[in-house]
């Protein structure tokens, strides 16, 4: 997640002279400079995958190291009435839908997710803006869920569709992982933070924790998981909201 939303809205209100909002969302991904960046990003991704070939786990910290305060960034409260109704009903009416290229589509309630084998980890969250904070996350390993749903033979990516519409262009936040990171033991769908129910600002009822990658990959307010063979047909085709909108790199291991 990123502070950019709040900062840019603030900036737009305060200083119209700074043309930050001007060209946003209209990135020409076919421009030579964009293609050069994509090339470099591809090289960087290959190098990361090379050093990660031993499938290491990220460092886990001690509960005593949990940050006293954990910043809320991106959407702090999805503005829709639907979300308000779900929140008022303590997410009893919410279902996590798992669909797409799976053998058995699922619709799981929060209670059903909480009844599944859980993983708890204390990790360092790192935002692309430079800040970091430690929290404890509890949730269902994504691999467990995907084993439950089964995968069709052509499944390659897992897309997380979120409940929050991002003010900058009104489309809903989304993110995606390939199966390698989706199956990583520390990639979990967290419903609890620091031993308590996940707070709204941190993505209630369910958020992604993908510890191999940075902040914005960790989608909050997850509504639906879709398994696909290509990211092209989704959003603007680059695999995530920031990737579409702001040239953010899709494989965000740094």
């Amino acid at each position, binding site marked *: 997640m*990123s*502070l*950019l939303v*709040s*900062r840019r809205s*603030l*900036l737009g209100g*305060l*200083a119209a002279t*700074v*043309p*930050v909002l*001007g*060209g*946003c969302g209209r*990135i020409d991904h076919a421009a030579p400079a*964009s293609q*050069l*960046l994509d090339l*470099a*990003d591809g*090289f*960087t991704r290959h190098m*990361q995958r090379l*050093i*990660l070939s031993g499938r*290491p*786990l*990220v*460092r886990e*910290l001690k509960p005593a*190291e949990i*940050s*006293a*305060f*954990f*910043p809320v960034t991106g959407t702090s409260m999805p503005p829709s009435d639907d979300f308000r109704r779900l929140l008022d009903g303590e997410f009893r009416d919410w279902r996590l839908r798992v669909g797409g290229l799976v053998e058995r589509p699922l619709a799981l309630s929060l209670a059903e997710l909480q009844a599944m084998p859980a993983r708890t980890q204390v990790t*360092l969250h*790192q*935002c*692309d*803006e*430079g*800040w*970091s*904070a*430690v929290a404890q996350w509890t949730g269902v390993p994504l691999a467990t869920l995907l084993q439950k749903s089964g995968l069709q033979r052509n499944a390659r990516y897992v897309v997380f569709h979120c409940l929050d519409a991002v003010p900058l262009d009104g489309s809903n936040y989304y993110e995606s992982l390939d199966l390698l990171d989706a199956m990583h033991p520390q990639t979990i769908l967290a419903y609890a933070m620091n031993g308590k129910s996940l707070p709204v600002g941190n993505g209630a009822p369910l958020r992604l924790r993908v*510890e*191999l*990658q*940075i902040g914005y990959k960790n989608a909050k307010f997850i509504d639906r998981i879709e398994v696909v063979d290509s990211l092209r047909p989704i959003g603007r085709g680059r695999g995530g909201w*920031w*990737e579409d909108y*702001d*040239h*953010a*790199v899709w494989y*965000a*291991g*740094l």
Partner: protein
Amino acid sequence: MSTPADIRHPWPVRLWHWLNAFAMGVLLLTGLLLFDIHPRLYWGDDGHVGMPAFFSIAAADRNAPVLQTELQIGSHRWDVSGTIGLAVDDGFGARDFLAVPAPEDWDFGATRGWHFLFAWLLVIGGLLYAGYLLGSGRLTRLWWPTRGELGWRSVVHELWAHLRLRGARGDAARRYNLLQKLSYLAVLFVLIPVIVLSGLTLSNSVTAAFPDLYTLFGGRQSARSVHFLAAMLLVLFVLVHVFQVFVAGFRRLMRSMLTGRYAPPPELPQ
């Protein structure tokens, strides 16, 4: 008596010098933009708004009617409104102060992309260059201080000459002087590796594969702080380096770094 020109900088040296200068320029500009989005430095792993930073440039009170930019180092605070620019939020103040041009559709993701692209140029170029220095023998022949140079008499003499801005002339000017040798060695073999390693420590993938990097730098935020502070030392080196080029003869030295050929300034008549 004029001294003949000889090839001082073979082509790999010149190529690396200019590519590296360009890479460092892009890395500095994009790095300042990246710093500016969270212009606070911390020590340890934890570091975010709402906890003390040992260095920051930010609005003193974001809700004040007239925003005031504050530079904070440790427990010292200075009002730098007007001189450092307008801090709207965390960031943006330094962006004005640094006069980094913000393109029409400046986007943060691309800034990171350019930073990493030119980091590759710095790293790959630096490794090739270090290999060349070792392999060609230039490292021991030209960069390594001789025993005589390290004697206290020679050190004092060299310092005094630098303070008076008296450069070497004649054949002596064909060699690097002691301070030059030490600073080149420090930059290529200490400062740049520290910058690269501290930068890599900011990566989830790299620290997953090499968790000892956290131990080396004392945490994620410490690595970020080291990264920026070391980059500022590199800027200091470049400033002194360019200053010395002007002191020691801009035309001669620029010619030698462009064409390779160098003719030292002639000896002064006794």
